[in-house]
Every structure is written in structure tokens, then in C-alpha cells.
């Protein structure tokens, strides 16, 4: 190897070592970032993404944190997360209890989004699924206590679809009804108007991320009554009607009426001696 060659060689060595050092430094930093991200990518359950937001992982790939959605929200619902907030920095969200989504017909936030982080496919705001309302506190909800508050039901933009009131017997008083607010996931947009309006100091109804608000049925579960309807009739052999040993002239009605006296007779079916009745010898001394 000539002297010049050696020099070139040494130069190359030094260059490679330097480059490797820089690459390692960058890689270390990158790994640090990746771990940090795991811990700090955040979306608290109370923070809701704007309508049309892609699923969270896709959203974090798409949103460039420009705030155009925030600017075009006429109700100041949307906020951009500030550095240090619990929501991934710079991304848009809203807290329903503060300002809910008013479900604008023209969905200006989605129109404003330049990246598609808010999906342009969403053109009917009723199709938005920002989260799902859940009546989380059945102990304090006034309607569960038997009162007629149901503010959440009244303010719901999809009243009678997203929230319905289901009448139930009030076992406490024994004679009144409970009007239970029930949220239906096939209609609820997660706008948060109900949570915002709940008159309790801490809302009894809350919009949560759908996976937190909703359970999932086992994949193999079939609801018998639905299957029956689909099939147009029962899929199993119908139950044989139960027969009771009843005194003559009596019938038993299963749907609730109970014992029915079929024909009026002037004679009591039972003997006057209660022992006879107990001993099932009602008609013996006829």
C-alpha cells in the first residue's frame, strides 16, 4: 500500500467512524423518542376527537396539528392541545362537559381539515361517532331515583333515537314508574350534549370512547328471539303447554291471569271441611 493510499484509507476510516457515531446518536435519540411516545401519547377518556376523526392510531399519523378545524368550529368547541396537556401535543379535542359538539349540519371542522385526519367521507353529522354516551351513575341519576329530570334526553339532538326513556316499575314506591334514559349506540354520535346538560354537579351520563362505553357480545352468541324472527318461527320444538291438575271447571292462564274459573257453579268446588280440601278430597262428599 502506498503512502497516499494509506492516507486515503485512514481518511475513509475516520469518516466511517464519525458517520457511525452520528448514526448511533440519532438512533439512540429515536429509541428514546419511541419509548417516550408510548408513555405520553395520550387521550384521556374525557377528551373527545372532532367528528370524522380517524381511529386514534391513524389520526396520529394524519393530523399535522394545524388547528384549522379548531378555527372553523363556530362554537369554540374544539381546542388544540397545548404542550404539557394530557392530550397528545398539538392535536384537536374537546371536553363535552365544557363545550359539547353542536353537530353542525355542514361540519365545518371536517371541511377545514387539509389532511384527511378528519375524514371527508363524513357528510352527514348524524353518522359521526365521536364516542358513546353512557349513563354511568345509576345511583345518582335523578331519573333512576324516580324523578323526572331527563334533561339529557331532552337536549339530545337525536332524541328518541340516541336516547330513549324506558318505563320501568318503581319498586321503592310500588306504584310509580321509573323513566330510565337508555343510550342506543346505533344512533348516538357522541356529541356530548347530554353530558354537558346533566344537572348533577358531576354528570351521571358521560361520553366515553366507544370501546370503554360499550361491551361486546361473544362472537358465537345468538339472541334466540332475533333468530326466531329471522327464521319466521321457533327453531326448537315448541314447549308443550304445562298441564296442572285442576279442579273441574278451572283453567290456568300462563300469561299472568293465573287461575281462571271457567263456569260459574253455585256449589263451591271445595268441601266445607278445610281438611277435605287439604287432603285433595274436594268433591268426595258430593
Amino acid at each position: 500500500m502506498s503512502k497516499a493510499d494509506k492516507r486515503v484509507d485512514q481518511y475513509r476510516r475516520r469518516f466511517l467512524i464519525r458517520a457511525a457515531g452520528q448514526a448511533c446518536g440519532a438512533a439512540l435519540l429515536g429509541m428514546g423518542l419511541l419509548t417516550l411516545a408510548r408513555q405520553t401519547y395520550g387521550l384521556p377518556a374525557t377528551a373527545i376527537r372532532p367528528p370524522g376523526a380517524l381511529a386514534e392510531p391513524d389520526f396520529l399519523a394524519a393530523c399535522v396539528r394545524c388547528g384549522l378545524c379548531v378555527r372553523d368550529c363556530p362554537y369554540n368547541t374544539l381546542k388544540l392541545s397545548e404542550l404539557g396537556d394530557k392530550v397528545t401535543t398539538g392535536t384537536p379535542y374537546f371536553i363535552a362537559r365544557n363545550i359539547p359538539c353542536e353537530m353542525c349540519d355542514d361540519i365545518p371542522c371536517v371541511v377545514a381539515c387539509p389532511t384527511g385526519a378528519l375524514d371527508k367521507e363524513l357528510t352527514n353529522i348524524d353518522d359521526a361517532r365521536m364516542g358513546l354516551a353512557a349513563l354511568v351513575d345509576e345511583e345518582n341519576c335523578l331519573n333512576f331515583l324516580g324523578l323526572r329530570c331527563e334533561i339529557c334526553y331532552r337536549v339530545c339532538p337525536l332524541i328518541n333515537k340516541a336516547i330513549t326513556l324506558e318505563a320501568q316499575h318503581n319498586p321503592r314506591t310500588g306504584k310509580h314508574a321509573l323513566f330510565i334514559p337508555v343510550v342506543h349506540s346505533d344512533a348516538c354520535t357522541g356529541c356530548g350534549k347530554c353530558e354537558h346538560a346533566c344537572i348533577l354537579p358531576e354528570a351521571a351520563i358521560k361520553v366515553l370512547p366507544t370501546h370503554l362505553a360499550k361491551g361486546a357480545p361473544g362472537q358465537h352468541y345468538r339472541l334466540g328471539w332475533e333468530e326466531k324472527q329471522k327464521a319466521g318461527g321457533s327453531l326448537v320444538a315448541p314447549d308443550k303447554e304445562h298441564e296442572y291438575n285442576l279442579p273441574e271447571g278451572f283453567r290456568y292462564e300462563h300469561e299472568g291471569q293465573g287461575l281462571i274459573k271457567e263456569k260459574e257453579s253455585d256449589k263451591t268446588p271445595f268441601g266445607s271441611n278445610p281438611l277435605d280440601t287439604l287432603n285433595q278430597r274436594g268433591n268426595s262428599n258430593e
Partner: protein
Amino acid sequence: MSSVLLRPGVDAIAVKGWWSAHQWLLLRRITQVSVLGLFLAGPLFGIWIIKGNIASSLTLEVLPLSDPYLLSQSLFAGHWPETTIVIGALIIAAFYFLVGGRVYCGWVCPINPVTDLAAWIRQRFDIKGGARFPRQSRYWLLAMTFITASISGSLLWEMVNPVTIVYRGLIFGMGMVWLLLLAIFLFDLLLSPRGWCSHLCPMGAFYSLLARYTPLRVSASKREQCNDCMECYAVCPEPQVIPPALKGAEQGIGPVITGINCTNCGRCIDICSKHVFQFSTRFTHTSYQGAI
């Protein structure tokens, strides 16, 4: 000589007067403030000329302008973008391709005044030492931001990117952004001279890459008048770009500063008492005098 370099510009002021010895610096600061002002006019005064922030914006309700670096990160993260941001990013990329990639750094970026201030204080108070990262580090970091975007499937760098965080903070609410600014300032001041912008910032690296064929460049067109006062080196954030143009006459290198890291900040023009530098294009050696 170092005592002279504590206060570079004395000669220039004596020869050209204070204003012309600071004209590009002032113009740069005015530009930085005006761009920010346009963004702030909306939220502060309800004058909506530009909406959004430098990540992506909408001017006069029609013109989308988007940062090509953010779009690239988003692509690496695996998102197929809407056309709006692609158009916006192409416009911005074309603009910086024409005027000099790192014009972004020198004329728009909100970090630049901070790191400039740190550099100025270092010089003025003769603060020496500190770690020196290789200037190539920024390209490795740039690659790192893309790779981690791919791995994490998200705009990972945007969690820490001081440029976008500060700009967004100024417009949408500072939160803890002051701490970040302070960190960068102290880093440049005490830990690493011109450490952030000239060695590490991947955003600066990205815009450097846009400058490969930039027509608008600074030229040392009167390099024969150079008296070796070294003041241009002292004020330039990327002094390694100067020697080929300034001292390359014998090797047959043209006077145009073609180094992609040059921010077209024009400090060298201001500081030179011998009128060596001026804005020019990369194609001409004869020059046109800068607009001001």
C-alpha cells in the same frame, strides 16, 4: 483579533452607517414578526388573513400552504393525505426551492431569533467551549424522524419539534412552550454553540436539502476586496459555507455561496465593511444590487 470579534460590525457601521450595517438583519426580523403577525391577527383582532399555523394554513380562505416536512412525516407514518395538504406543501416547497431552502430558517422560523440571541450573547461575553456536534448530525436526525414516524405510525417528531410547537404555541396557547424555548436558548448558550439550528435541527436539514439548486444565493462577488477581518465567519450561523466562495478564486471556484446550509440571512452582507457580499443568483457572477 478575538477582541475585535467580540463586537463584529464596528467597521461596517463606521463605513456604511448603522442602518445599512443591519439592513438584512432588520428585514429578517420584520419578516419573522410580520408572518407571525399575520397568523396572530386572526385570533387577536379577528382579522382572518391566514388561519392555522405553519404546519398547515389557509390564506384568504382559498390558498392552502403546508409544510412539506410535516407532510413527509405523515407519509412516512403511513397516511395517504388529502389533496389540500399536498397542494399546500408543493407550493411551499416550490417557494423555498426558489428563494433558498433555509430562508425558512432565517426568515420565518420562530427558533431563529432565540438561537441568534444565544449566539450573540456568546460572542459578546466571550463564552467559550461547549460540545460541538458534527454538522452532519442533522441529516441523521432527519432520517431518524422519518424512520421513527414509520415505526410508530405517527408524527413522532412533532411531539418534540420545537419549531412547530413554538409556532403553534404562539398562536394557539403557550402551555409549557416557554420551557422549551428556554431549553433551546440555554442549550445554544451554554452547552453547544449554535448547537440547535446549525447542527441538529432536522427541520433545518430538510430545508437544506431543498436548497441544492436554489437560484437565489449570496455571492462574494467582490471577494478580491476582502481584508480578512473574519467578521463574516463570526456572524454566519453556517460559516463553513463561506470559504469556498470567498477564498476559492485560485481553485477556480465561483464566488456564489452554494452550500446548502446557507440560510440566505444576509448577515455577511451587512457585516462586511468591504462590500464583498451581495444577493445574486447561482448562475451569475456579475451581480445585481440587493433591492434595499
